[in-house]
């Protein structure tokens, strides 16, 4: 302990520099390590069941009882076209969701996803196919459309 009080000035200057270097090294090392949290498979795996639940919700609001199994949704996602790898956060994710609507007709909806680094995203649905911000319920009141836009989070470790 007493040694530190009589440290030569050169060592006193070097100690903080070494500390800064250690922190910078740690930051660079951590940034380089690990695999991406946001991947195509995780986005698709989380979007399909979320869409299905919200579609069933929306149809219930509109007065139709639709069993979840009959929706038979599938999603195919892509980030930024064929040139960009389908990983990482960004507002340029597009997902095509294939599903069967309440009348039994096959439909395809294009969702625009804003994916965040925290493994959550906001999906905005096609208004023509799935309705706007509000929809009328069975009693004619305007209520929030569950499919207009919705938030989903997924496990970055799964």
């Amino acid at each position, binding site marked *: 302990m007493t040694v530190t009080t009589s440290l030569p000035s050169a060592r006193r200057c070097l100690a903080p520099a070494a500390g800064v270097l250690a922190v910078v090294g740690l930051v660079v090392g951590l940034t380089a390590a690990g695999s991406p949290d946001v991947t195509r498979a995780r986005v698709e795996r989380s979007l399909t069941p*979320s869409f299905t639940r919200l579609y069933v919700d929306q149809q219930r609001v509109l007065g139709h009882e639709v069993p979840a199994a009959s929706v038979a949704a599938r999603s195919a996602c892509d980030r930024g076209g064929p040139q960009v790898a389908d990983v990482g956060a960004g507002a340029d994710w597009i997902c095509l969701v294939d599903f069967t609507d309440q009348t039994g007709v096959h439909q395809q909806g294009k969702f625009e996803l804003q994916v965040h*680094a925290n493994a959550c995203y906001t999906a905005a649905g096609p208004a023509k196919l799935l309705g706007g911000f509000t929809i009328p319920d069975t009693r004619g009141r305007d209520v929030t459309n569950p499919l207009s836009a919705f938030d989903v989070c997924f496990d970055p470790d799964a």
Partner: protein
Amino acid sequence: MSTDAARGIRPGPGTRRAAAAPRRAGTWAAYRWELVKLAALVRTRATLATVLVLPPLVVLLLRGQRAPADTLFGRHVHDSGFAVPLLLLGFAAQYVFPLLTSVVAGDVFAGEDQHGTWKTLLTRSVSRSQVFWAKTGAAVTFAAAALVLLTASSTVASVLLVGHQPLTGLSGQSIPAPHAAVLVVGAWASTAFPLLGFTALAILLSVRTRNPALGVVGPVVLGLLMGLAGSLGGTGWLRRALLSTPLEAWHGLFTATPFAGPLVQGAVVSLLWTAACLAAAHRSLCRRDITGG
């Protein structure tokens, strides 16, 4: 025991008696004094009053507004009273939590420098180490009190003013009211770990800079920088090592298949930050040459 060796560097008039005094009782007495000092501060009372009063006001303001859709659960604030405390939590995680604790922890050591009271304080029959743990304990107590009040105020105000409708979760599933209430409280409680980390960070800055302003503002700026770094994609494990990331770990509670990985990682990361900051602050205080003031 290294602290006794550290005190040996500059033996003051009180140190000999401190060694003879029962250690636990000394820290406990000092801790109670620190709490009395904190309770007398206008800033402490004002902060606690604010966290109690502000959430109901925000809930009232939100009622007349279009739902804020840019934060998680924002689009559901008119549909369920359980969405509002989660919107507030998401907002607080970005801007409020570091300040909530640094307003006290950033000042608790540096305030003695500012008022030149270190010498008076250290003539009491407690060691520097005991003073350190007493002040740290007081700062942690304040942070815990602020978190409990903020949680209670946000949740109770939202449920009373908006209602206890089922909550739409983060996989589009509907969460029934009693379960949603448990999850909301759990989500707020999960931020106790990073809040402890920010408290330790503020204490470190408070000890090292000896400047209350830097101690209070430093953790806020560092918290914002860490949040910014975490929101950039492609940072690998850096994101998980940041102290701001555990503030978002509660998202996993609200999916259809809940996941606890980020919560566990966040708790470990927060405790590592806490241990590192407190160790550095303790070492710095015990080795400091306190002759002026």
